[in-house]
């Protein structure tokens, strides 16, 4: 049998991407040995001394990793739940409307925050939260209340962060679900109406099931990423205020600070490795879970 020639041309077309992925995704994977080193910038990854698990020991005994992980998990859970409910409810409401122009305007307004970077968003929210000039304190003052030092009161921040996260993300989610609904034949809903179904029954038994596959996929993605925090949201919006760390310091900001401010690359790498490993297991788990629910809605 004649052997096929080596596919040079196709390989060459794939090569640039291959090299870039090798360098920027796979090389850093070997860099995780840093987590087991007392890393020294002068000596580099190859020359730094190995110190076993002491970086991890430090993370666990000081308790730092527990608190940032807990913050990351519960705030992400809060964002996932509010985001999912918010987007689906808005998509359902939007679907009830008929005016094409109005729908377009609402969609554009809902989705614009998605195109603003977190840095620009942080500027926008300063105008509300600035303790001296911010509009929130003015309103509180007008109502006879006491001004709040927003950037040093951790208690309010889970709520503020959830609201800001919703502001930025809900539009895109709504657009996505709306696009799914727009692809469904109107006949389904008309048949339900003829059968005498109420609006809520129609939504529950007909409309929502159309959204389940999309909801499942987005949920898997979200659960798989639950140990990863949105760095910009947690770093820029609270203005990196130390007083807020108890509720705004997440794994990603912790790793960043350990690397840049505390100059502890070994420890930062250890925290990053823990995050990557847990995230890896979670994606696999979430996918297996999705496969059990419905064979067709898995991610891979």
């Amino acid at each position: 049998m004649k052997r096929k020639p080596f596919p040079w041309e196709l390989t060459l077309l794939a090569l640039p991407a291959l090299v870039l992925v090798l360098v920027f995704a796979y090389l850093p994977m070997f860099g995780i040995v840093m987590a087991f080193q007392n890393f020294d910038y002068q000596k580099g990854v190859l020359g730094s001394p190995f110190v076993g698990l002491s970086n991890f020991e430090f993370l666990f005994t000081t308790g730092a990793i527990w608190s940032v992980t807990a913050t990351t998990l519960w705030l992400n859970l809060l964002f996932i739940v509010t985001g999912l409910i918010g987007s689906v409810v808005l998509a359902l409401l939007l679907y009830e409307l008929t005016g094409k122009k109005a729908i377009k305007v609402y969609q554009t307004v809902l989705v614009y925050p998605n195109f603003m970077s977190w840095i620009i968003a942080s500027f926008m929210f300063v105008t509300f939260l600035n303790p001296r000039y911010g509009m929130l304190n003015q309103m509180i003052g007008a109502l006879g209340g006491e001004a709040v030092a927003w950037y040093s009161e951790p208690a309010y921040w889970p709520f503020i962060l959830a609201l800001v996260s919703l502001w930025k993300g809900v539009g895109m989610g709504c657009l996505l679900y709306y696009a799914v609904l727009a692809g469904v034949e109107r006949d389904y809903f008309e048949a339900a109406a003829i059968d005498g179904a109420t609006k809520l029954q129609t939504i529950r038994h007909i409309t929502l099931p159309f959204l389940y596959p999309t909801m499942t996929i987005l949920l898997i993605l979200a659960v798989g990423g639950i140990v990863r925090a949105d760095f910009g949201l947690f770093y820029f919006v609270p203005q990196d205020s130390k007083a807020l760390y108890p509720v705004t310091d997440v794994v990603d900001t912790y790793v960043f600070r350990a690397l840049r401010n505390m100059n502890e690359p070994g420890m930062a790498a250890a925290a990053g490795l823990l995050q990557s490993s847990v995230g890896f297991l979670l994606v696999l788990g979430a996918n297996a879970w999705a496969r059990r629910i419905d064979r067709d809605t898995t991610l891979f």
Partner: protein
Amino acid sequence: MHSSRLTRLSIHAFFVLLSLAMLLPLISVITTSLSSDVEIIRQGGYTLWPTSFHFDAYALIWKNPFQILGAYQVTILVTVIGTAVSVLITAGVAYTLARRDYRFRKGLSFFLFFTMLFSGGLVPFYILVAQVLNWRDTYFALIVPAVVNVWNIFLLRTNFQRIPIELIESAKMDGAREFTILFRVIVPVATPAIATIAVLTAFAYWNDWWLGLLFINKPDMAPLQLLLRNMLSNIEIILSRMRDMPLSLRVTNQVPTEAVRMAMCLIAAGPMLFAFPFFQKYFVKGLTVGAVKG
């Protein structure tokens, strides 16, 4: 089936109120940029509607445009070069992956896909770019790490696969090489999909602050987003470099710090605010196509 008129009216009312709430942060930035600090202090804070309009902040920036122009230049250069290179490289690998007769298709797919599941984390990546490659304060650091996006590769591959294989085979019969087939046969047919990833990539480069935050220290290499971030904390330093204060400001010696800050924010966000409504549909497409298993 449509809801009753009353229901629809109340839903409209709801969306109008919600839209106003969503716009509130933007409106307050605009208003603040148009007010003077004296006024802000006199009124006790920022307001949603200023009692009088001042363009001092914009005048000041207009006379001292170098910083923001420099940042614009960096951002535009990064966005244009980054997007062009990224689309070219992504199209190449997506075509190879789309060819079912490519021998290493499965392996290559997995090689790319695995990076979506596991990463070495920030620290080794930082050491690689900053130390091993020594790319601090260079355009390379702002462009190269973001060139390949595996999500976009799969999006484009799925799209290329829908193109009938006969098109490729007949081109081959005519003796066309793979490069020619990609650029003469595939690209013209798949223009909408390529436009989608081009738009996604361009927006990502334009709004990127992460690479700047990690690798840029020199002020004149700062992209727009980084300049803004530095302004949030160092507005006084930036203002002190500004000359040619408008007369009214020189007399009262009142530099409109808050207004300048917000005006800069708007000048940076402006192009995005005007551009995104035209490209909105690409983003929805990117999400829906990408969310289908490939």
